[in-house]
């Protein structure tokens, strides 16, 4: 599991923190800390993006259950592999076979 690295309280709390260093009830006093939790480590299959076939239709983006296909300026970027769990839904959603799943991380 990834360590919590960002600023704020989470900066000081990780899996080496002793019991008396935790917040009461494990309460979290900052937003969006799930970004720091790298669920991509659970992945056993990895999507590969073939830019030569991709038409930038963006159909894969709303299908991704983990918001792991970033879009900048109306164009999708490469996968956010820190958070992609490798479910393969994007591969099925792509009408142009521009996404294929490869075995392993």
């Amino acid at each position, binding site marked *: 599991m990834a360590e919590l690295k960002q600023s704020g309280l989470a900066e000081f709390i990780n899996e080496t923190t002793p019991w008396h260093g935790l917040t009461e009830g494990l*309460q979290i006093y900052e937003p969006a800390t799930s970004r720091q939790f790298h669920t991509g480590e659970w992945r056993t299959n990895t999507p590969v993006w073939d830019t030569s076939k991709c038409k930038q239709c963006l159909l894969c983006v709303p299908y991704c259950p983990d918001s792991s296909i970033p879009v900048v300026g109306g164009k999708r970027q490469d996968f956010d592999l820190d958070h992609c769990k490798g479910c393969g839904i994007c591969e099925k959603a792509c009408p142009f076979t521009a996404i294929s799943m490869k075995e392993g991380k």
Partner: protein
Amino acid sequence: MLKTRMSGNEAVAHAIRQINPDVMPAFPITPSTEIPQFVASMIANGEIDTEFIPVESEHSSMSAAIGASAAGARTLTATSSCGLAFMWEVLYVAASSRLPIVMAVVNRGLTGPLNINAEHSDSMGARDSGWIQIYAENNQEAYDNFLQAYRIAEHPDVKLPVMICQDGFITSHAVENITLWDDMKMKKFVGEYEPQHYLLREDEVMAVGPYAASGYCMEAKKAQAEAMKRAKQVILDVAKEFEAITGQSYGFFEGYRMDDAEYAIVAIGSVCGTAKDAVDAMRERGLRAGLLKIRVFRPFPAQEIADALKNCRAVAVMDRAEGYNAVGGPLGAEVMAALYRAKAKAEAVNIMYGLSGRDVRVEDVEKLFDELVRLGDGEQVYSETCPYIGLRE
């Protein structure tokens, strides 16, 4: 100060009126139903401005209490028996999220057989849920304990929910004399609730009750366990402050004629009034009898109980909840473990009494003291590990 008379449920409602908490989600169940009923009347009459949430179940009342408390509101609810059992899952969430909710528990046996009378199986079942548990002998104690509850729950060293328990019907419905304390004095004593972190705080984003992977969970539980230990000192400090205002003295337990007692009974709740009469009767007969009435069961004051019993020859620990473990009840198990750890010399027996509201008479307790004398002499008095009293044989 006002000397009057009322039931235990009314007494708790009176404390709620004086505290004027922010939110009360509640679902009715005998014999605690009157408490939300009284509160609803007080709200309708404009005496308090508590937000009352009628919910569809006790699982919902505790869940709503958790939400309200996390939002930053001083929160309470009330329940009994199966209502408490229906809260089971979320009781642990309230405690592990370190939310200072106060709950009036009117003790009634868990079904079955289906019964509505006094027994401790409901709150004893929840004894390991992480809630502080404080028990009352009578209406005065239920009132006084409730007034002290938020001071304990909200203390920065504690931050744990509290159950204020009284015996169903015997205490909750019987009308007894009581002394009520001045509104302003009690409002000042309880004070305003000013949490540091809460969901409705405008300048802070916060998450309550996040998933804790195994890399965090054990440490969180240790921290929670330590808060329960720290609650001991806070309970004593709050009691001392309460005594300075009211003259009422409270601790982990009350020792009744325990100073030179050789034979003692350990019990919880309304039976202690009966046991005190039996102690007096035995003293008149020349026996050094005493009663240790447990007020605080969670945190369990093991060392203090063992110290109070250290000079006794024989001790009977009375349980109003069958453990169905083939050896006895929860109070018996914990007091005996405390005696063992303290290397106490006293003979000890666990007694089952008063299940599902079965009456206990002064003569029953006197007979128990007679048996304790024989037990202290080394006699084999009982054929069972946990004998019943008041049982048709």
